[in-house]
């Protein structure tokens, strides 16, 4: 290799700028190229290009058999994904939003989550279901909820909540490699966010939580769309001399409780920030795990910052008020560490 060629190699950009939407599209494309058993199925994933434009262009590249538009029959196209998975394919089912997924709950809870166990281990369901979740776009009370915490209640499925560009890019493949049903909740407010990622991004796991900001004063435990609000709060607190650790759960089921307990063991304080409602929430579960596993490590009672217990309103000022914001998260931290 000549010196000149080496110079060209070095000059090639090692990072690329992508939106979260483009990152997921790249992951889908890679999966479709890698394995001919993989196909994408859902409402308007093909000709329309996906209601959030995630699958835009894939129909042209892979054709209507593998980029399969479905009628508005959530229960049956999710159930068809289960059946196709049991028959040897690797379906990726897209549901437009988590609110619509309620129409498919029978198939998800009664079939996808149970068949392996009910059949005594004979039939596994290697299915991936992706759906948009979350608020912040003034879409009111039937398009804005964060129900992934409900799904995390159900044994038999795995629940992922990517909050970073790397996870939008990287979680799909390990989900497809998993022999059991994996649900990916993509916070729709992130789709248009841009970020930098390695041109050849490294693989990610779908087992562990990840510390996104190391700190010593308090553990802020969060996931998904709330991650950026929490990081923003942590930066503003740093300016005040409060050093917050930010733990991104990434995987809501099975929960990486060890990572939570380790973080609390370092900081001795914990606040859970959850876009779900407070009562009976994932935040409640994390709080209980801390109480069970790190009670004597705590210098203060665990606190939670969750979405107000109200169907999401349309008006922007009301929606903003309902959601955990960097300011309200920071206020909760100040209160806890005694700077309030």
């Amino acid at each position, binding site marked *: 290799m000549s010196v000149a060629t080496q110079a060209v190699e070095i000059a090639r950009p090692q990072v690329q700028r992508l939106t979260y939407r483009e990152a997921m599209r790249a992951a889908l494309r890679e999966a479709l190229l890698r394995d001919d058993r993989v*196909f994408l199925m859902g409402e308007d994933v093909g000709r329309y290009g996906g209601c959030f434009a995630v699958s835009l262009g894939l129909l042209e590249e892979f054709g209507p*058999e593998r980029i399969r538009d*479905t*009628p508005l*029959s959530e*229960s*049956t*196209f*999710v*159930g*068809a*994904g*289960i*059946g*196709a*998975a*049991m*028959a*040897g*394919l*690797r*379906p990726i089912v897209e549901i437009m939003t988590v609110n619509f997924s309620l129409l498919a709950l*029978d*198939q998800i809870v*009664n*079939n996808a989550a149970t*068949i*392996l*166990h*009910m*059949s*005594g*281990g*004979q*039939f*596994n369901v*290697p299915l991936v279901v992706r759906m948009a979740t979350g608020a912040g776009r003034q879409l009111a009370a039937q398009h804005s909820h964060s129900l992934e915490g409900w799904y995390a209640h159900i*044994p*038999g499925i*795995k629940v992922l909540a990517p909050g970073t560009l790397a996870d939008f890019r990287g979680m799909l493949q390990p989900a497809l*490699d*998993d*022999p*059991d049903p994996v649900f990916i909740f993509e916070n729709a407010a992130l789709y248009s966010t841009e970020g930098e990622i390695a041109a050849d991004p490294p693989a990610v796991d779908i087992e562990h939580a990840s510390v996104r900001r190391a700190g010593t004063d308090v553990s802020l435990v969060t996931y998904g769309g709330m991650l950026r609000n929490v990081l923003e709060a942590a930066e503003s607190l740093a300016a005040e001399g409060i050093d917050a650790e930010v733990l991104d759960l990434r995987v809501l089921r099975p929960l990486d409780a060890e990572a939570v307990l380790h973080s609390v063991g370092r900081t001795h304080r914990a606040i859970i920030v959850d876009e779900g409602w407070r009562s009976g929430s994932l935040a409640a579960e994390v709080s209980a795990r801390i109480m069970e596993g790190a009670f004597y490590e705590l210098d203060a009672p665990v606190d939670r910052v969750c979405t107000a217990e109200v169907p999401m309103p349309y008006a922007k000022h009301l929606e903003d008020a309902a959601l955990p914001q960097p300011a309200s998260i920071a206020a909760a931290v100040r209160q806890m560490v005694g700077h309030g």
Partner: protein
Amino acid sequence: MAVQEARLATVDPDHARHLLREMLRIRRFEERCVELYSATKIRGFLHLYIGEEAVAVGAMQALEPTDAVVATYREHGHALMRGIPMRAVMAEMFGKVDGCSRGRGGSMHLFDAATRFYGGNAIVGGGLPLAVGLGLADRMRGRSRVTACFFGDGAVVEGEFHESMNLTALWHLPVLWLCENNMYAMGTRLDRAQSETDIALRASSYRMPAWSVDGMDVLAVEEATRRAAESIRAGAGPLFLEYRTYRFRAHSMYDPERYRAKEEVEAWKERDPLVTYPALLGRAGLVTDEVVGELEGEVAAEIDEAVAFAETSAIEPVEDLTRFVYSERTAS
């Protein structure tokens, strides 16, 4: 009756006797299950198929080993006819580790990978979307297989029924829809729940061939189902059969049967396939009382063996309670 005799004349005599034997296997198996339920060896729900045997026996003749079956919670007969060993079905009823679902499913959730038996599904209508997916996989892979999906008249008013009919017709999937219309969704008679009681007519509105068959006539069931399955194998897309049948016993083990008249039950019992079919074979000279007696003896011996197997089978160790929530192997 002349129709039945004419049809019988086209059937191989050994096969005709085989059908009787298979119906006896289901009937006597379930009668023994009732005794075992009373003896508390079997618990939970026990939905008996007694009266409807001609459907599973006739229909299953049309399927190949590579085909798939999706069934309901009233599926003992389907499981036996699909070829799941009786001992494995009985052990499942006993909740034993040698049961076909390792004791995790019970009467309502019999599964068997070896025979592509995708379960007793106990959510009415819940199995239909699975059949759509099984058929979709076959179509996408270019495999010439049939997915046979059984469900009852109650499923016809579930949303999943309509979604599934539509999708199979729209995507031209190789799915054989088999509606066992026993006239009652638990205790609710068809005409009290459905504005259009002609079930085949409703299915045909999705632009697939659909017709009704006398579900008390095993030969008629077999003939119609063979025709439908062959048509699907030839690439015709989905087909729909409605078997008109009747459940002689309670919905589950016990119910006061306030929802139907004794006279109605008695009238249907006149058409009991375990009465009419051996009589038909007798008139045709294909069986004698002695032959029927021999069949009964063989069936009783098989059931005795199955019960003994279930009795002596181990139970799953409690330490294994949480196995099979997630897979123990990686996907390939």
